[in-house]
């Protein structure tokens, strides 16, 4: 990239200043969908959770599907960006901000679902461990409490991870703007000046955060998987669930990231910054995850089949050839049969359009996967007399659609206030190497006294 810092600034800050009618139209439509979802939620709180399609035995349905799905999408971000940071992959630079934003938004949306699905949501704070007048603490043996801690840690961590490298960019906007922008960005840039000390502490903090956030992200989705695996439900009670969910989460996260980046590239005219190489590299990751996902699915089914426990087989067959088989095979198509060949062929993988074609079915397929983990298992528990089924109502569908719209809306607004690409990090990639490096930063962090 041979752009001058000034050109980069101009290109990347343009979306902050100029918005077309398309932006307002999109924002209006998405807001309407989000409002509809909030209306549906209010309707549900007012009338009772029964307005959803949840029933006995399928006590968890769309809401928990969405919870797992969005928490999974959230792994796009921080985890990928952290891994790339730790492994010092330089091509990451235009990608990380976008990925981290996906994390924060998807996590916020996902974290809402446990509340949406509560029977008495007005008492949600009983999940929070605080010294209450009731004299009783929440039960720490419950995976839902683990969720509470894990998601909050992850939310705090990933928000920090998103915000820390933004301060220099906010300072940049502050310096170039006037009027209210100058004031607002002056505040949010926290008085960033750019001393070597600040730069160094920032980079050091980012390195520590990157190391810390990876195990947190792994634990979050493992714990989400344990929400299921800790309950003795056929098809849930399995040790494979932790890694299976983490792999699936990263898988869906990368796919979501590719789609988001392609959209931003198109809409914000970032063609010169988000280049096919970025998509290709992400595509390679995606291919690995697709194979890994298929490996997990295969391993899980095969062990179930050989185990031949009657209750597990009921769930097995209902997904293979029974009521849910159409969804199951759609999922396999979406997650493996469509994307894997596309991503395996270099000619296709290097084209942005094709990576998007591979990613869209993955998002759908991974949503289906979560649905297929929850519903067939719950509807076919041990005693055949208790077999049941599940059919969502408009309430769940509206709320589900609303969260997708909400994700879009948050991203849209985000792109209007944040430089969607980390400007200083991008410039860093364009830095000339010193001809004679005086005191090189070859000492590593850990080697410091």
């Amino acid at each position, binding site marked *: 990239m041979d752009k001058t*810092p*000034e050109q980069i*600034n101009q290109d990347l800050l343009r979306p902050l200043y100029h918005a077309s009618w398309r932006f307002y139209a999109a924002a209006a439509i998405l807001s309407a969908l989000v409002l509809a979802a909030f209306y549906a939620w209010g309707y549900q709180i007012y009338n009772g959770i029964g307005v959803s399609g949840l029933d006995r035995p399928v006590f968890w349905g769309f809401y928990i599907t969405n919870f797992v799905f969005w928490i999974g999408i959230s792994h796009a971000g921080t985890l990928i960006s952290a891994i790339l940071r730790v492994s010092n992959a330089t091509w990451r630079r235009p990608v990380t901000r976008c990925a981290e934003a996906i994390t924060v938004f998807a996590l916020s949306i996902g974290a809402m679902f446990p509340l949406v699905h509560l029977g008495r949501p007005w008492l949600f704070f009983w999940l929070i*461990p605080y010294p209450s007048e009731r*004299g*009783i*603490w929440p*039960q*720490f*043996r419950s995976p839902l409490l*683990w969720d509470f*801690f*894990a998601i*909050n*840690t992850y939310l*705090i*961590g990933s928000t*920090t991870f998103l915000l820390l490298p933004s*301060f220099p960019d906010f300072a*940049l906007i502050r*310096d*170039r703007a006037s009027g209210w922008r100058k004031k607002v960005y002056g*505040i949010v840039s*926290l*008085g*960033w*000046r*750019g*001393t*070597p*000390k*600040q*730069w*160094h*502490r920032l*980079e*050091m*903090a980012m390195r*520590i*955060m990157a190391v*810390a*956030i990876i*195990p*947190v992200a792994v*634990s979050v989705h493992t714990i989400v998987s344990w929400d299921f695996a800790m309950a003795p439900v056929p098809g849930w009670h399995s040790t494979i669930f932790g890694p299976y969910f983490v792999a699936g989460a990263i898988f869906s996260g990368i796919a979501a990231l590719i789609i988001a980046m392609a959209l931003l590239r198109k809409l914000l005219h970032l063609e010169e910054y988000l280049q096919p190489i970025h998509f290709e590299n992400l595509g390679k990751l995606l291919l690995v995850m697709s194979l890994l996902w298929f490996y997990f699915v295969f391993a899980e089914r095969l062990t179930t089949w050989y185990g031949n426990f009657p209750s597990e087989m009921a769930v097995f067959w209902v997904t293979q050839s029974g009521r849910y088989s159409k969804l199951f095979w759609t999922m396999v198509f979406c997650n493996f049969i469509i994307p894997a060949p596309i991503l395996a062929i270099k000619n296709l993988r290097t084209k942005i359009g094709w990576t998007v074609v591979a990613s869209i079915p993955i998002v759908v397929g991974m949503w289906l996967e979560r649905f297929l983990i929850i519903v067939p298992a719950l509807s076919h528990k041990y005693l055949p007399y208790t077999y049941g089924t599940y059919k969502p109502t408009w309430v769940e569908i509206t709320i589900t659609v609303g969260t997708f719209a909400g994700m879009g809306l948050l991203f849209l607004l985000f792109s209007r206030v944040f430089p969607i690409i980390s400007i*200083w990090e991008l*410039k*860093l990639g364009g*830095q*000339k*190497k*010193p*001809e004679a*490096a*005086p*005191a090189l*930063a070859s000492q590593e*962090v*850990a080697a*410091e006294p």
Partner: protein
Amino acid sequence: MKAIYGLYPDPESAQRALNLLERAGSDLGFKDRDIAVLSGEPYEEYGFGQRDHKTRMPWLAALGGVVGGLSGWWFVSFAQKSYPMISGGMQLVTKWPDGIITYELTMLGAILTTLFTLLITARIPDWSGRKLYDPAISNGKILIGVTNPPEMAREELEKRLRAAGAEVVKNFGN
């Protein structure tokens, strides 16, 4: 605060200016820590970007993690004992599940300690606007200067900053 500084278009000239200032400190009566460097990018490969590199941040983060984990463990055990209830045939204080919360709080402790160490050591937030700054660094310029320079050395400093290749030399706080 008062300062005199030059703005440099490229890191090489900035490095030259810094080298110059480091040598001149004893002549002109200012200390090494009065030398100010501001840039829009980290410039890790250059000497001026390497100043103030000494930090215990990783150790502090580790310590924060240990504190977080210990307090998590204590908290969970305390809560389980304070309202003793047997559940699912498990013991009162359940070590393995408690480990999960301990783990999460360890990570949270590390993350928060890192965040606060950063904020404290990088002296942010600071909205006072009294510190040396020039918006030109956002356009890729590098600021090298001296804070609270001795009045008599002002002209000499200005000359040397220019000699190192400064596009412009400015005074701050006058």
